[in-house]
């Protein structure tokens, strides 16, 4: 290998400086997004605790402790140190149930979002890329879906299919696609006419290759941002369905059905309804914060 020439050395130096400047800029931006990073850490903690629930939960979430029915959190009068956040109407430990309950929300949230993102992106791409009648049909479908309250649709479909975890994932997944489709369609319309896509077409690329190799890579950050924010929405809806008794069925702990059970006892035992709700609130809050930070970082022009 010959020694690099002066020109090459200068170029390498310039590249090095540019790279480190870019790295610094990235760090600066990350620092500016410290809220997002903080939120991500909290979210990771929630995910981790749900994953290793059997290891960290103080009790079995279904274990009944009849001596300590409806006992308040440990720091209150009559509270016991055995049950940090108190117990529910049959003496099940609330902390343990909350740690386990996170599993349902996270699984439903992520699974439903994957389904709706897949449907929405495919439909949005077809509408934006092909235009014409395809576009009209898909846009009409989007309008119908967006007009109608998601909650009512989910309620009605669950009522027919029967309430359980899988049906809930399917319903929330199938009902949630329009937002992806709308954004992806708009972006596709803009990208379709850009030079690199025209060049691809001139080179004789087929539709599939053009769409997935030339257009989709430009949409990834947008889709990631929407999907993140949608996880929070799905978690709230899932909790609501479970809250009404149309989601995950008791005794399986889910934040929503814990809240629903706690509502019956809210006259005397406020903690049963309060803590699961707080869990939903904190989870959706950190997901939203993270989603907003992701948007500022990846796709500052995206308006949601």
């Amino acid at each position, binding site marked *: 290998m010959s020694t690099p020439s002066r020109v090459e050395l200068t170029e390498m130096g310039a590249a090095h400086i540019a790279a480190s400047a870019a790295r610094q800029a990235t760090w600066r931006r990350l620092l500016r997004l410290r809220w997002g990073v903080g939120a991500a850490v909290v979210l990771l903690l929630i995910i981790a605790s749900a994953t290793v629930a059997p290891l960290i939960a103080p009790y079995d979430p279904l274990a009944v402790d009849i001596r300590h029915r409806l006992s308040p959190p440990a720091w209150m009068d009559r509270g016991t140190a055995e049950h940090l956040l108190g117990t529910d109407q049959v003496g099940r430990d609330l902390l343990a149930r909350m740690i386990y309950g996170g599993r349902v929300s996270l699984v439903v949230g992520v699974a439903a979002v994957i389904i709706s993102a897949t449907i929405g992106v495919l439909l949005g791409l077809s509408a934006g890329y092909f235009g014409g009648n395809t576009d009209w049909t898909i846009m*009409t*479908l989007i*309008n*119908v879906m*967006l*007009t*109608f*309250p*998601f*909650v*009512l*649709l989910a*309620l*009605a*479909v*669950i*009522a*027919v*299919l029967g309430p359980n975890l899988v049906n809930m994932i399917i319903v929330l997944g199938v009902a949630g696609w329009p937002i992806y489709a709308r954004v992806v369609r708009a972006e596709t319309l803009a990208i379709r006419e850009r030079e690199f896509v025209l060049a691809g077409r001139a080179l004789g690329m087929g539709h599939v290759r053009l769409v997935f190799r030339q257009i989709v890579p430009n949409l990834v950050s947008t889709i990631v941002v929407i999907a993140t924010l949608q996880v*929070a929405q799905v978690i*709230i809806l899932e*909790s*609501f369905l479970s*809250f*009404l*008794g*149309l989601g995950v069925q008791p005794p399986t702990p889910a934040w929503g059905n814990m*809240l629903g059970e*706690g*509502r019956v006892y*809210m*006259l005397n035992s*406020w903690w049963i*309804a*309060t803590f699961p*709700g*707080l869990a*939903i*609130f904190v989870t*959706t*809050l950190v997901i*939203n*914060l993270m989603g*907003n930070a992701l948007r500022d970082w990846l796709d500052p022009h995206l308006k949601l």
Partner: protein
Amino acid sequence: MRRYIARQLVQLVVVVFGISLLAFAILHVLGDPVLLLLPQNAGKEEFERYRHLLGLDRPIYVQYWKFVSRAVLGDFGKSWYADTPAFSLVLERMPPTIYLTLSGLVVALVIALPLGTVAALRRHSWVDSLCTAVAVAGQAAPIFWLGIMLIIVFSVRLRLLPASGYGTWQNFLMPAFCLGAALAPITMRLVRSGVIEVMNMEFIKTARAKGLAEGRVVVKHAFRNACIPVITVLGLQFGQLLGGAIITETIFAWPGVATLTVESIRNQDFPVVQCAVVLLALLIVTVNLLVDVVVGLIDPRIRAS
């Protein structure tokens, strides 16, 4: 203007058609009404007889046509549970839902208009940061949890407000606040960005150059123009607002359409569910149409595009 309204009307028809298809499909494609109506131990002939009786052995498009041609006349069949026409059952419950939705809208505007405007005029001040924080928190708080917390604090602890019921103004306070709080964050963001955009425009400079007082510039010139996107988005969000009302109703046992729908779903009373779905959809598209027309009247630029 006439063409503009005509175009919106065509869209309305298409959307209503789509919703009717959806409402029909929920029962007839996803489920089997006979299976839901008859006890599980009914014999095979019994099932067949019922299927024929209800016309379910005929082709699906014939069934759909029957459903639509009756629905247009307001006939959604009798409730399987209460033996009254589903239509009158749903219609009776409509006013409370509409009142709740409107009062939620008012609360949202009362919170969002001043806060959003102040946040826009004092950008990056502590007011702005506070508004952002409240908005982010408000968006994350599930309505049904907020409602329960309100009941625990104001009804159970302080004994100030009734936890449920309908009729007096006290009954309205918590549900309206609950729904308004859910809608306020997005409204506030819209007002803020609207005012920021308008304040940079030429006519604001003109107004200032004329020597108008700043308060007058903000209220008469900026605020009015900033309202257009707010009206549009709120109108289009009416469906979501109604979705929020559905959740709120179930918390406060509000005697509206949503409580009825949830009850009917529990009882598997599908004529009522279908009727509620179609009527709510009709209400939503009508409101959307009205909003489009109103916005078109306010802002000629939209009409032209």
